[in-house]
């Protein structure tokens, strides 16, 4: 019999828009999240974009 218990935490690899969304959803659902990003700031490629279609909102 394995006595392993389920661990209520998740590792998210990548801090772009996708990683951030996953992390937020999990944290809000009651799981502890480790978000790992190789660069000094989260945001990923999207932060580099000037504006996004269709609202031409800035992407920040």
């Amino acid at each position: 019999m394995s006595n392993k218990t389920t661990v209520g935490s998740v590792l998210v690899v990548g801090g772009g828009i996708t990683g951030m969304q996953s992390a937020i959803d999990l944290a809000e659902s009651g799981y502890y999240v480790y978000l790992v990003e190789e660069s000094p700031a989260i945001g990923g490629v999207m932060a580099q974009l000037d504006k996004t279609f269709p609202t031409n909102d800035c992407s920040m």
Partner: protein
Amino acid sequence: MDKCIACGTCAEKCPAKTADAFNEGLAKRKAIYVPYAQAVPLKYAIDKNRCIYFQKGKCRACEKFCPTNAIKFDDQEKDITLNVGSVIITAGFTPFNPDKFDNYQHAKFPNVVTSMEFERILSAGGPFGGHIHRLSDGREPQKIAWLQCVGSRDLNRCDNEYCSSVCCMYAIKESVIAKEHLGPDFKPTIFFMDMRTHGKDFEKYYERAKSQGVRFIRSRVHTITETDTSGTLELVYATESGERVSEQFDMVVLSVGMEPAASAMEAAKTLGIELNNYHFVKTSDMTPVATSREGIFVAGALQGPKDIPQSVVEASAAACSAAVNLASARGSLVKEKTFPAERSVQDDAPRIGVFVCNCGINIGGIADVPAVAAYARELGNVVFTEEPLFACSQDAQEKMVEIIREQKLNRVVVAACTPRTHEPLFQETIRNAGLNPYLFEMANIRNQCTWVHSSEKEKATEKAKDLVRMAVQRAGILEPIPDLSVGVNKSALVIGGGVAGMTAAISLADQGFAATVVEKSSSLGGSARDVQHSWRGEDIQAHLKKLVDRVNSHPHITVLTLAEIVDASGFVGNFETRVKVNTNIHTIQHGVVIVATGGRASVTDEYLYGKHPAVTRWHDLEQNPELLSGASSVVFIQCVGSRDDQRPYCSRLCCTSSVYQAIEIKENHPDTDVFILYRDIRTFGEREVLYKKAREKGVIFIRYSLDKKPVVTGSGDGLDVRVFDPILQKELVIHADRVNLATAIEPSPNEDIAALYKLPVNAEKFFMEAHAKLRPVDFASDGLFVCGIAHYPKSIDESIAQAMAAAGRAATVLARASIQISPLVSQVNSDLCIGCGLCTEICPFGAIIQEDADGKGFRAKNISASCKGCGLCASSCPKKAIDMLHFRDAQILAAVCAAV
């Protein structure tokens, strides 16, 4: 890192400059840097490869000048071991590097830039402040060419045979924005192969771009040369009819595609998950975010090229999948923070403490902080002032708690940076001192004062005094606001029993939440019943059967068929819906709503459909293979009722579906001639491989345009199809035994659902999400979610991902016992209200209703759970019967009056 206050002194003093990768190398940055001004965390980091100390052993200037001793040169790399229940990999993509293509001359010609470089050039926060100019001579360009499919759909020069999905759309966006910047004389041109604007509302954007003067040329440019020393470029290309054209442009933007990043591939290898032929993470269409290894999920562009909304959908879907596995341990590792009991301040006169932060030299170096503090001390109700060096530092925070207790302060004003970043921190501090967090006010004397008036020290001091006075006046009449929370009914109502609805229901039920599926027809399955295979060739019917069985047998799922929703009310956490089944009315209490009402292939009267037995549509041929027996020629017609005036959108699925079916026909009957008449082939992403395969198998593709649609006429038992071939420049007559039409996908009739739950739909009647990019499954109102074709036509893998995403987002509501909502909400004074209903009408969130509570006629009533605190109602109420907590008229006016 905790000590860094992002003052920027270190970067100012750092002597080492290097190319700024965030700006695609178009600007310089220092070796100690923040990637960009809004970076999170806003902390400076040292680029080890560029730092003089790390390279040559000397310097450490930053360390000397750092006012908070936040720099540690002896910090060592550490390995950290984490024990986690699940892993989600979202390591993204890297833009294709075109330097290895000599025909595009990106490395050599300064005026050939990549689309990512162009994004930075366009950006107001970029290296040129949004001023577009040529890198060769700084001149404003009059003509820019965008070249599509650089590093995509290309096997000759790179191995990326897939389509990168997003480049057509971003090229259009860049050209439109460039035109906004450069004015009416600017002439943008986009060179493309197929225009792939298959996303929601993309087609309309494409049409608008055309009308705004963006020129679209269907051709692949083969040579770029510099014509003169200023860097003007000459492009040589062939038109569709084979004519050779050369034309000059001021700049060229290469629309580069997506590739998985090398570091991402490595991470995937470390995690032991399988990659596909193109080094994207391998998944199945029926489990779109599951990797080959159990417990590890993937989302975003690492799974395949995709745009932002689809990435966000998968992000929530992956979160949902991880949560399904770990449901038994939900909440086991998260802790709730506790605070001391709140002190009542209602009956006491205000005792205001003002903390004027020096922020090192950021404020203190410009404004006269002691003078500001002394001035504050003289203001009414102010009983204490202090001038901390860094108000936000740990020790200053602890001291603040002590002072609040000792001095019995009941309002706190901090004059420092911006409330947008630091208000929550200080609110927590005063909570620790037993004060309600809303008894706090900030005066922004750094970002909006000393930083922007650094050359006018006296005026900055005067302004700081004014800002402090405004804050103090407002603080004096702030009131404690109790937490606002609502209980949550931990169950979901899922509207629609197709693949999307069933997947959402199962994804929630597997996490222990009850779900009721309401289906208007007599059985589950929806439009997936008509489709045999997903685009990767997986068996949809087998999956559908499993899904239906699981839904029917799941202990947490109730299914109501032949059911019609007749009434709905409530708000997040507390909805009540009445469902009519035959003559019975079921009343269902639920916490969230997932709308998955689906769609269907439209019926057309074009091309003899319904008039000639040999004209079929969509999957008729796949479902009835006998129709093909003896057929020697089959013609598919695309965009039947899509991308026209009536339905100005692309139905997204049809190109892939027809190409897939054409391949099947060719494989089963190689002698059958198969023609596909199309406007643009939109086999986006890795679906492109199917398009290539079809051409290899001998399927003939003929493009037609909207003004020269094909004409189908009866001819004996068969049909004649006339179509103008733009390459041969003449009309062809194809004799066909079968004509199959890819008719537009339209949403199921959903006006009733939209009206009952006050949900917005777009012009084509698809439900409208809260934000096209960032909130693709949420509705603007809390607790309501959308997935599947109800949102926009999509393939089964995309529907499944969106359904799981909707469940994932819904779980963020259902996982909680109660929902804390911002208590800064609207408050109706029913004594003043005359029940005119204007507020109900203008509220964007349905947060005010009209209710006849005590039989005196209708009066407005707040639904605080839905209120976002925008205040539109308060500023519009004809009777001034509505006020906003924390932003009361009186509180705003106190600051206004104190401004002068």
